[in-house]
């Protein structure tokens, strides 16, 4: 039948074409190395001039675009931004996706904000590269772009407001767990999404810290992913303890994960025997610290992080800074900050919370 013959001919044609294309391009074409070389020459773009004494503008609109709306951590940090903006006489708004891994949704929100002609966007990026085109488009349309909590590539935003250096956070969490388990035994990591930029950076520093000779008796057995979902993190904790009966400690560098893990441990026979540390909020963890499930954990103050992001956006929009290394600006009662390498501003060292000090913090 003619259909059969035609199908055969089509298949053959497809195969030949593919072979030809593959053959023709195998020795030429654009590879990763070519692209990197091209990018480097184009990367150095001149930023505008900054005047540190320029007046702080009022009546601006700054939009917060967290990784995920209705996530308690981001609610706290965005509320910090809201308070700071109100004090500065500007308007706050918050938009975002309900899933923490919906990158295309985040891109749409950046595009929408560009359309709505907001003055500044403070965004916590779900992915370092996915927002780039949209954010560059926003900056071209006069929007100041600040990343907070989780960064994009450096040329896709004006300033990154970092919660503490990634290196500090990664290393101190290992130091915490080592102290709690007496420098000996198996440990595991319970992270958020497998693609979360900040989580993976911290985990890399944790692994690097573990290479030091004083941790030679500590063995990192696995990294589990709870996707910042309470139920999934709970089940992952359960799974970790079943698969690794000799487990001595868990590091969970995510507020949702550490809470779920603590919830599981406190109701199980492992309570107090398997140590848990990581990044959590005092409100979430207070009960578990008091009932002996958790000795100590750490975090920065997310409200301050949001406030600093808001101050940074306003300073950019007022022309006090342009995002270059060495520029300084005032951020209300948070004090004075200096922009570091690659346009990164750091909030400071993480705070360790334990039985003694946890009641001083309410967030």
């Amino acid at each position, binding site marked *: 039948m003619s259909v059969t013959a035609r199908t055969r001919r089509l298949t053959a044609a497809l195969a030949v074409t593919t072979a030809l294309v593959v053959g023709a391009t195998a020795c030429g074409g*654009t590879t990763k190395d070519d692209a990197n070389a*091209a990018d480097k020459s184009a990367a150095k773009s001149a930023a505008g001039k900054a005047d540190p004494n320029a007046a702080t503008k009022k009546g601006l609109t700054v939009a917060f675009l967290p990784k995920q709306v209705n996530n308690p951590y981001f609610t706290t940090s965005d509320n910090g931004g809201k308070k700071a903006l109100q004090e500065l006489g500007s308007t706050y708004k918050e938009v975002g996706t309900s899933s923490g891994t919906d990158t295309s949704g985040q891109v749409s929100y950046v595009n929408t904000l560009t359309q709505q002609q907001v003055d500044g966007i403070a965004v916590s990026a779900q992915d370092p590269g996915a927002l780039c085109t949209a954010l560059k488009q926003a900056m071209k349309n006069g929007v100041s772009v600040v990343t907070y909590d989780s960064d994009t590539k450096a040329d896709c935003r004006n300033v990154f407001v970092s919660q503490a250096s990634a290196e500090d956070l990664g290393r101190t969490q290992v130091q915490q767990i080592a102290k709690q388990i007496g420098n000996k035994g198996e440990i595991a990591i319970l992270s958020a999404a497998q*693609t979360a930029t900040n989580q993976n950076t911290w985990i890399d520093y944790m692994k690097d810290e573990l290479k030091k000779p004083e941790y030679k008796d500590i063995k990192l057995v696995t990294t589990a992913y709870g996707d910042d979902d309470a139920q999934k993190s709970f089940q992952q904790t359960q799974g970790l303890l079943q698969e690794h009966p000799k487990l001595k400690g868990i590091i969970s560098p995510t507020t949702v994960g550490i809470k779920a893990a603590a919830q599981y441990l406190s109701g199980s026979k492992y309570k107090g025997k398997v140590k848990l540390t990581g990044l959590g909020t005092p409100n979430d963890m207070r009960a578990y610290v008091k009932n002996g499930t958790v000795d100590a954990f750490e975090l920065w103050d997310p409200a301050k992080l949001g406030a600093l992001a808001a101050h940074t956006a306003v300073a950019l929009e007022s022309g006090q800074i342009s995002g270059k290394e060495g520029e300084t600006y005032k951020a209300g009662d948070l004090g004075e900050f200096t922009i570091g390498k690659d346009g990164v501003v750091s909030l400071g060292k993480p705070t360790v919370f334990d039985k003694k000090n946890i009641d001083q913090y309410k967030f």
Partner: protein
Amino acid sequence: MPDSLKADSLKSAVRWDTAVGALLIVLLLCSFSFVDNFGNALNVSFLIGNTLPIALIALPMTMLVISGEVDLSVGSTAGLSGAVMGALWNNGMAIETIIPLCLLLGVVCGLVNGLLVTRLGLPSLAVTIGTMAAYRGIAQIVLGSDSVTDFPSQYLDFGAGRFGDTFVPYAALPFVILLAIAVVVLHATRVGRSLFAIGANEEAARFAGVRVKRLKLSMFVTTGLLSALTGVFWALHYASARYDNATGLELSVIAAVLLGGIDFDGGRGTLGGAIAGVFLLGSLQNVMSLLNVSAQSQIVVTGVLLVISVLAPRVGRQIARSRARRRTAAAPPPAPAAG
């Protein structure tokens, strides 16, 4: 199916298509006049760019659904194609080699689905739920938690850019060509007529000499190919190749296709309706975002629309049928129609 009934259902399907098209035009007109910042070229180009992945896959999906099958693995195939693209790029292969390989991979994915459905006679819903999970899993094995973003800038510009200051994204051009091909194939060739025949009554189509299995297999392969193409476009448009790219895309596509009046039981629908459905959902989403409607409420609106779109043609058909029955009961019996 008696001729009178067939004519009735055909009419109601056509009416639904037209209704969706009209609704799209009304929505666009209202948005242009009343929604701030909707009408400017940049926003319209965003709208089209964000809707293109759904529109691309809607082309073969429309044909599949018309022939009575469905493919739920399209989002995963797109994700897998993006993941392979990222992994090969990281290994230093040229992008001009990678893209044809990704498309070939899409063909293989479609072939697997098609063979399982046509050779083993399994229901496509079950098969593609399985491969949806499998392809996504392979994508995760291939690329892991990496996200590859450093594709050559001319390709990224093609994925996200537009012609000058107009509202037309570069990527719209190949889409229009593919759309034209799809319209001709479905509505003006024997292949298209055979697809409708299979969807309406597979047994009858087989007896009429339609090579049912072969045709279905080629539809699955086409769907895989276009899903892989969408995966490549997605990675370039959002400048990010990740294993979880295009998660949930299959649902958006099916929602849009159903909204466009394609009958889920097969045998009925038009490509015009499907594309109107795709852009109706896309525009609605864009407008709601500009109006600061929360993401949660947007999902509710989309869901309600979908239920209405599945219900409305059926209710319309029921009414038409009961009216016809009343008429035949009242009138003297007509001469038997030729069968």
